[in-house]
C-alpha cells in the first residue's frame, strides 16, 4: 500500500473543472453499464440490479456534488431514451413505472454517501468506518422514494411494498456495499491524484 504524506495543497482550478466533467461522465457510464446485469424476481416488479452499486460508488468516490451529477446525468440519458435503466429499458416513462422511485433513490443515495465521505480532492484519505457508514446510508436511502412509489403505483399496503421492494434485496445490497467499501479508497486516491496533477 502506498503510504501517504500530505498531498500538495494547490489545485489547478481548470484541471479540477475538466476532471469534474470527465469523472461525472465516467461514473454515469459505469451506472449505465450496470444495465447488463438485471435479475428479475418472480414476485416483484423490482429486479436485482448492479446499478445501485455504481450509483453508490459515484457518491462514495466523487463526493456529494459530482456524485449527484453523475447520477443525474445517467437519469437524463435514460430519460432521453438510451436503454440504460434496469434490463436495458429507456425513456422517461420508466420514471412512472412501479420501480421508478428507485431511480430518484439513486440520486438521494449518492448524495447521502457523498456527504459522509466528502470530496476526494479535499479529503484524500477517509477511514474505512466512515466509508462503511456512508455505504449503509447510501444503500438504505435508495429505498425511501423507491418504496413510496411502489406502494402508490401498485396500490398495495406498506407491508406489501416492503416485501416486494426491500426484503429480497438485503443480501445482495450487503454484498454490493462490502465491495464498494473495499474499492472506494483505491478509487478516491486515483481521483485525487488525477485532479492534483
Amino acid at each position, binding site marked *: 500500500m502506498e503510504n*501517504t*504524506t500530505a498531498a500538495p495543497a494547490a489545485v489547478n482550478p481548470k484541471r479540477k473543472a475538466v476532471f469534474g466533467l470527465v469523472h461525472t461522465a465516467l461514473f454515469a457510464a459505469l451506472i449505465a453499464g450496470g444495465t447488463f446485469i438485471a435479475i428479475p424476481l418472480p414476485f416483484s416488479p423490482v429486479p436485482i440490479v448492479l446499478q445501485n452499486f455504481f450509483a453508490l460508488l459515484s457518491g462514495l468516490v466523487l463526493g456529494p456534488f459530482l456524485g449527484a451529477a453523475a447520477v443525474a446525468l445517467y437519469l437524463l440519458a435514460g430519460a432521453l431514451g438510451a436503454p440504460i435503466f434496469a434490463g436495458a429499458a429507456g425513456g422517461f416513462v420508466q420514471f412512472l413505472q412501479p420501480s421508478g422511485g428507485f431511480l430518484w433513490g439513486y440520486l438521494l443515495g449518492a448524495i447521502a454517501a457523498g456527504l459522509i465521505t466528502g470530496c476526494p480532492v479535499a479529503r484524500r484519505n477517509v477511514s474505512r468506518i466512515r466509508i462503511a457508514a456512508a455505504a449503509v446510508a447510501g444503500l438504505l436511502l435508495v429505498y425511501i422514494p423507491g418504496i413510496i412509489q411502489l406502494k402508490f403505483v401498485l396500490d398495495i399496503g406498506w407491508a406489501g411494498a416492503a416485501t416486494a421492494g426491500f426484503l429480497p434485496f438485503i443480501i445482495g445490497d450487503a454484498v454490493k456495499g462490502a465491495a464498494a467499501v473495499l474499492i472506494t479508497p483505491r478509487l478516491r486516491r486515483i481521483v485525487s491524484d488525477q485532479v492534483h*496533477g
Partner: protein
Amino acid sequence: MAETVFSLRNITKIFPNGNRALNGVNLDIAAGECLIIAGSNGSGKTLLMRILAGLSDPTEGEILFKNRPAGQHTRELRSFLGFVFQDADAQMLGETVAEDAAFGPKNLGLSAAGQRAEDSLKAMGLEDKKAYSPRRLSGGEKRRLAVAGVLAMGCETVIMDEPFANLDWPGVVQVLEAIRSLKEAGKTVIILTHELEKVLAMADRLVILDKGHIRGSGRPEEVLDRLKPEYGIRDPRKSYAAAGDCTWLDR
C-alpha cells in the same frame, strides 16, 4: 541566438508517496531547435514533458512560455504545442481514424481540418485505414495515428514521446521524414526516446535525465562522450556488442 519558447525553472515533482521524480530541473528550449531527451526508464522524461504541457503540476518551480507564466495563456499554448503521448491508446479520441486525426485541427478551429488530417494520415501511411475504428488498429498503426493526429494540428512545437516504439522500418522513416520537414519549417521538436541510433543525426541538442536530475545537455557527441553506465543509454556510435551484450553484430 534564437528566442526561448519554453523555460522550465527549478522544476521539482514529489509524489504523495514521497517519490522525488524530478529534482530542480532547469531547461530552456529555443525556437526551432531539435532536442532529444534520453535517460533510463523512470528517469522522469514523460513527467517533465507533461509538466511543460500543463498536463501535470510541479510541486515546485515554474514554467515560462514566451517569458510569461504558462498558465496565463492556455489557449495560445494549446495551439502552439502538440504532444504525441507515449501511450498511443490514451490519445485516441475519435470514432474513426479520419475523425481522430481531424480532432485536433477542428478543435483549434483551423481551416480545412479534414484536408490536414488526410495529409498527415497519408504521411504516416494510414490512408487505407481511414474508416477503421482506432481501437481496431495494430500497435504500430496506433502509434502512426498518434503521430498523424498531432502533425495535423500544425503546431509550432511538437513533443514526441517514444515515437519509434512498435513502428516497422518504413514507419520509422516516415517519422524521421516528418521530423525533418518540421525542422525545415523552423519548428521546435522535442523527442523523448531510447532509440538514439535512429534519430540522433537530427538533433541539435541531447539532454540526459537521470533520477530526475539533468546530467548533461549539449551537442550530442559531447554529451555522449561523458556518458555513464547508470544513465541507461547505449552510445549509438558503438556496436551493440560493445555495449555489453551479444546481439546480431558480434556473432
